[in-house]
């Protein structure tokens, strides 16, 4: 090893505190980059190859009943490569061991062959057998959540009759990588699942012999999804088509694509934050190092070392820090990636999802790190290289201070010299001080936003389950019933109050903007289901016209007073022009409300209902469930309490993990900034502080001088961070809102308090690490040494 390298390694040991802080920041950046970028490519690769092997469809359509004779017409649409027709129905399920009824979507599969499209991947067991109408294949998520496996029996209401089915196998499908029950905002694998039954058996039960109510299409490469959709819609219009959708609108695909995209975006900006911090820290650490080593730089140059070797020597410090951080980051990234994958496999069902770190991600990590190292080191290296040897031999001229801006104010005359020192030191390096403030602000904002996500979920739960949805159970009927059915519901055990609703599928059109949704009709006098605005106030449904969620109104580019086209997807399927009479800032994304009577007039019905919200005596819930299970007219039931419990189970762990990560990131940034700044201040001003000790200042007093600057910068950064956090909290709900729901804005004093306490504690704890060094200041040496 050359002498210069030995110097490098010895000095690295000396600077280890600062280097560790920098390594942690870089490791956090690399870990988040490696994890998210690898997760992104792992998911994308898995998804693509899964879709390919399972022949996942490109276009999906449901209708009421379409004769098979139409199939050739559909198959001949230009661009259609393959077609698979099916019967798809929603059913109520009695799961052994589960008191409340569950629901499922049953999809038909050919008994004698594999489906052309959306093929199943068998996890265990075997295919349904021809002629065995009770055979069923369960989705893996539903089977696992309920501890069901091949050979078990399960009861399902098939066309109004309870049937006991035999589970022949457990499978996954590209169509249901994530299983969310229609209209729900949450995953509850215990109470909602997917099942596959033989086409013959299902068609027979639902009067679909020689017909289908769902079809999926694959297209030739390059074919236009939209033009195929339009042609399908034209052909199927008379068969009660709900309108064809592309893959992009398919629920499971959309949820997983959102997740993949989120990883891709986060893999970009989170590492950028860390690398900016790292470049800043490297810069201040190396600038200081070079300035303390002016003499050695001069000597090296006098000995004939070239500028290049001196430059490389100082870049070496940065490279060691950065490579250390990169290696640690990769290890952490791999570890968290595996954990994350584990978490994903609970929600997303793939034949196999393995976390892999692609080589290009690793290479990119190293390259980005090295660029950061060079950037961080550049100004320090430049000053070392530009120093003429003779100049370098002379000690650095005394730090020039002058009166700052603040000195012009009268109050500065009455502050103590210690305060003067703190303020002037901050003023002397405006850029460095400002960047420190920004970094602290960033760490504060990260914490506030992190907690905001937590609050947002709490807010969704509170609004949805405590204020809007106040029923104990919501029932949906297999098909709309006449309103006297409500009186039958009152006879169910424990039922104390019934409020009926009608739901009608519609296409809403305002000029070029089209949105598919459903109008929910609610009684005027209601207590169990409210429409709640952004401030949790209950909103009345206007006597006439439509009440839209503000999200939907925005999507349609429509305002109160505008009239839009409402295309009914039921009954006579006519299109009516209707006024928007109110808009509500509700957390549910796409919703349209009307009064029941108005909706009945619109669909020309006399008091039909799609379902009801119930208030049920909790002591009689078991009897209630038992009776509901025996009522074939009921297609599904959602029980508020169990939905809430399952929501909490699913999301709380998820949230906990991300909150921990966010707090960790913020602490690393704050620690890195405060530690490095304080450590450098100590190195620059050790002599000054020792002189002050000689003059009789106590350790406490010089601690104030040293750390006062850091505390002042932290105090300046926190309010800015709070402001950034506020802006983020206001922006995020719009950024994240989907058709399904919108996270509410919240900005609580508790979160601000928490962020302030965390950032301030980090400053104090880090400061106390540095303070210990003040105890070892050499008071005698200072008398004999020049700065």
């Amino acid at each position, binding site marked *: 090893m050359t002498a210069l390298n030995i110097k490098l390694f010895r000095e690295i040991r000396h600077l280890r505190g600062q280097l560790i802080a920098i390594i942690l920041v870089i490791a956090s950046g690399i870990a988040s980059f490696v994890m998210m970028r690898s997760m992104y490519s792992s998911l994308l690769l898995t998804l693509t190859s899964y879709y390919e092997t399972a022949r996942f469809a490109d276009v999906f359509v449901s209708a009421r009943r379409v004769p098979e004779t139409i199939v050739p017409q559909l198959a001949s649409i230009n661009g259609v490569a393959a077609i698979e027709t099916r019967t798809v129905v929603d059913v109520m399920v009695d799961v052994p061991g589960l008191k409340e009824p569950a629901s499922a979507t049953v999809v038909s599969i050919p008994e004698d062959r594999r489906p052309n499209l959306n093929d199943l991947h068998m996890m265990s067991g075997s295919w349904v057998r021809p002629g065995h109408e009770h055979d069923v294949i369960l989705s893996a998520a539903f089977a696992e959540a309920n501890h069901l496996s091949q050979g078990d029996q399960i009861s399902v209401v098939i066309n109004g009759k309870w049937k006991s089915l035999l589970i022949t196998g457990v499978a996954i499908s590209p169509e249901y990588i994530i299983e969310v029950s229609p209209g729900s905002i949450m995953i509850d694998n215990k109470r909602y699942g997917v099942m596959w039954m033989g086409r013959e058996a299902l068609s027979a039960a639902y009067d679909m012999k020689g017909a289908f109510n769902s079809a999926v299409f694959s297209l030739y490469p390059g074919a236009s999804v939209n033009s195929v959709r339009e042609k399908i819609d034209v052909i199927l219009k008379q068969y009660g088509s709900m309108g064809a959708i592309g893959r992009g609108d398919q629920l499971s695909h959309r949820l997983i694509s959102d997740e993949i995209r989120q990883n891709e975006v986060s893999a970009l900006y989170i590492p950028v934050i860390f690398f900016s911090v790292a470049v800043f820290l490297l810069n201040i650490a190396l600038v200081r190092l070079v300035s303390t080593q002016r003499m050695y730089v001069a000597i090296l140059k006098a000995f004939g070392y070239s500028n290049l070797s001196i430059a490389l020597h100082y870049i070496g410090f940065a490279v060691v820090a950065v490579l250390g951080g990169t290696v640690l980051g990769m290890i952490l990234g791999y570890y968290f990636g595996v954990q994350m994958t584990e978490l994903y496999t609970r929600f997303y069902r793939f034949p196999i999802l393995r976390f892999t770190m692609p080589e290009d991600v690793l290479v990119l990590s190293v390259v980005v790190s090295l660029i950061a190292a060079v950037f961080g080191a550049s100004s320090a290296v430049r000053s070392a290289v530009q120093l003429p040897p003779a100049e370098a031999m002379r000690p650095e*001229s*005394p*730090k*020039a*201070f*002058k009166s700052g801006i603040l000195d012009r104010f009268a109050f500065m005359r009455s502050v*103590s*010299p*210690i305060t*003067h*020192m703190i303020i*002037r*030191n901050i003023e*002397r390096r405006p850029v460095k001080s400002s960047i420190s403030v920004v970094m602290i602000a960033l760490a504060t904002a990260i914490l506030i936003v992190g907690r905001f996500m937590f609050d947002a979920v709490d807010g969704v739960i509170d609004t949805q389950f405590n204020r809007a949805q106040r029923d104990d159970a919501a029932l949906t009927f297999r098909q709309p019933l006449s309103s006297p059915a409500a009186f039958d519901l009152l006879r169910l055990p424990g039922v104390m109050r019934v409020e009926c609703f009608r739901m009608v599928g519609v296409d809403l059109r305002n000029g070029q903007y089209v949105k598919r949704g459903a109008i929910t009709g609610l009684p005027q006098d209601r207590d169990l289901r409210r429409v709640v605005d952004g401030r949790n106030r209950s909103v009345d449904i206007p006597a006439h016209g439509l009440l839209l969620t503000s999200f939907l109104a925005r999507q349609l580019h429509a305002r109160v007073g505008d009239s839009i086209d409402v295309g009914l997807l039921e009954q006579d399927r006519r299109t009516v022009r209707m006024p928007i009479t109110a808009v509500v800032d509700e957390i549910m994304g796409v919703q349209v409300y009307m009064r029941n009577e108005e909706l009945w007039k619109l669909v020309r019905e006399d008091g039909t209902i799609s379902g009801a919200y119930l208030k049920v005596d909790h002591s009689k819930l078991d009897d209630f469930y038992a009776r509901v299970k025996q009522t074939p007219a009921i297609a599904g039931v959602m029980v508020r309490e169990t939905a809430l419990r399952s929501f909490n189970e699913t999301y709380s762990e998820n949230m906990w993990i991300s909150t921990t990560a966010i707090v960790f990131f913020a602490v690393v940034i704050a620690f890195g900034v405060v530690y490095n700044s304080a450590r450098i201040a100590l190195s620059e001003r050790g*002599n*000054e502080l020792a*002189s*002050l*000790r*000689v*003059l*009789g*200042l*106590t*350790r406490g*007093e010089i601690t104030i001088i040293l750390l006062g600057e850091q505390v002042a910068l932290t105090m300046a950064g926190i309010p800015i961070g709070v402001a950034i956090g506020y802006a983020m909290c206001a922006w995020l709900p719009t950024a994240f809102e989907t058709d399904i729901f919108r996270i509410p804005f919240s900005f609580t004093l508790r979160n601000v308090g928490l962020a302030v306490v965390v950032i301030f504690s980090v400053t104090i704890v880090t400061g106390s690490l540095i303070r210990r060094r003040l105890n070892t200041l050499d*008071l*005698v040496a*200072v*008398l*004999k*040494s*020049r*700065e």
Partner: protein
Amino acid sequence: MHEAHSDRPVIFKVENLVKTYSMGEVEVRALDDVSLTIRSGEQLVILGASGSGKSTLMNILGGLDTPTTGHVFYRNEDLTHANDDRLTQFRRRGVGFVFQFYNIIPSLTALENVQLVCDIADSPMKATDALALVGLSDRMHHFPSQMSGGEQQRVAIARAVAKNPDVLLCDEPTGALDFKTGILVLDVIEQVHRELDTTVVLITHNASIAEMADRVIRMQSGKIVEEFEPTVRKKPSELTW
């Protein structure tokens, strides 16, 4: 008044001071059985070459270091085993330091440098008065980087005397200055001694400076080898080297 020193109260009394440092495996005796009494109002010069032990002695007197054996008393108080807090209080109230390299705070103006010490002293003089005493009234709003070495040293002296210390400890105060400026600084020290009746202990390797002392102690290899009172006390302006 300088003739009556023997009647003045004792400020420092050191008895059989020994200070050893271990430098690796070698033990260095920096002070070897040194005993000394310093009385109030005295102007004492400790003379010695580099490594003679003069700085070690001053560090112990100033509460910056403690002896290995022996005793050091400050006005009847035994400082030998005083803890850090006590030594800090002692430095804060009892002594003023003047260093070879001034050690003034670059981020504070001349006035603020002096004020810094006034803020923590029990009965300081006004910072402006201290600066007037060293002839820097017109430079008090200047920062160190805007002043010459001699001016910076005078700020250091003003800072040291502003707290009205019992004793002014000056460690090679002219070491970093040219002759002319050095004389100017010594003149200020002499003036402080005269006008405020402050006890001055000045250590130097420059034998000429000894000629301005009431009493001179010469040290060599950690021992006091000579002690005398100059027959003629010269004014700083009369010194040459």
